[in-house]
């Protein structure tokens, strides 16, 4: 499966996302923000980073990039799209998913290995998990606090659009401990933590078994690939 990873000026984890696609058995395709060409990919990842320095609002300027026109059209047509951290912020700015992100409640950049609960295991990117499963995924952001008005929160809670929730610690003050959200159709998923950093043994978070051995993030990428293959 060809999975596109869009590089924006200031994208940082684009190579990591490409590596994760490869480790999951897919073929990563590098896409450039300034093009209007998706090169025939079957899924798209908007990677983490500080596109345009996170200036103005995180993800805001990148969401105006040329390629986002194609990304929005593809998403609306049902193509799987995953937004990681900065990519999550872009999805919100582009209104592909509800809500927005503000500065972390404690005002600092934070990096930690974060436990998440999978709340919706039916989306294109989460179907390899079991509902209620707890996974550990590295988190690192400064503007990670998910917010929305009460009505929106009630709606996404009610319709199962909350894909992940923080467990134990809410690292940024997100409403309802929300760590990840999907669109109504379940093909577009955004989350703050970085699954691509938990895909290769020796370079992931610590687990009770061994240091840096956590690979819970791999399931995001195998989910989308296996569902595509089974179609």
């Amino acid at each position: 499966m060809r999975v596109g990873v869009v590089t924006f000026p200031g994208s940082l984890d684009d190579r990591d996302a490409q590596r994760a696609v490869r480790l999951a058995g897919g073929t990563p395709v590098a896409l450039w923000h300034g093009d209007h060409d998706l090169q025939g990919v079957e899924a798209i990842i908007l990677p983490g980073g500080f596109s345009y320095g996170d200036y103005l609002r995180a993800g805001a300027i990148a969401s105006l990039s040329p390629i986002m026109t194609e990304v929005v059209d593809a998403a609306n047509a049902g193509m799987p799209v995953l937004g990681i951290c900065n990519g999550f912020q872009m999805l919100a700015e582009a209104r592909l998913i509800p809500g927005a992100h503000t500065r972390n409640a404690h005002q600092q950049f934070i990096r930690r290995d974060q436990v998440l609960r999978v709340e919706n295991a039916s989306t294109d990117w989460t179907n390899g998990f079991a509902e209620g499963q707890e996974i550990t995924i590295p988190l690192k952001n400064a503007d990670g606090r998910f917010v929305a008005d009460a009505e929106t929160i009630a709606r996404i809670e009610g319709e199962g659009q909350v894909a992940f929730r923080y467990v134990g610690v809410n690292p940024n003050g997100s409403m309802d401990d929300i760590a990840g959200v999907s669109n109504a159709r379940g093909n577009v998923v955004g989350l703050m933590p970085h699954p691509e950093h938990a895909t290769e043994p020796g370079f992931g978070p610590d687990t009770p078994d061994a240091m840096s051995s956590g690979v819970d993030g791999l399931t995001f990428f195998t989910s989308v690939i296996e569902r595509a293959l089974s179609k």
Partner: protein
Amino acid sequence: MPTIVVEVMPKAELLDPQGKAVVGALSRLGQQQFTDVRIGKRFELTVEGEVTEAVLADVRRLADDVLSNSVIEDVVSISVLDAAPAV
């Protein structure tokens, strides 16, 4: 060259942690008369040429679509700099 000022504030319903931190800092300095502080943004746009109605219309649209995010922010003022209050 003329300057247009656009001011954006976080929505009143939303917690503004940065503002809260400033209230705390002020109160530790003995300044308890400030019950709330909210922190927004002030954009100064320098315009090439005259500030016509068309330019202002552009600015109003950009203020809503680009300079602010209506999920979390409100545009509270747009003005041409000369009209701004003095210090």
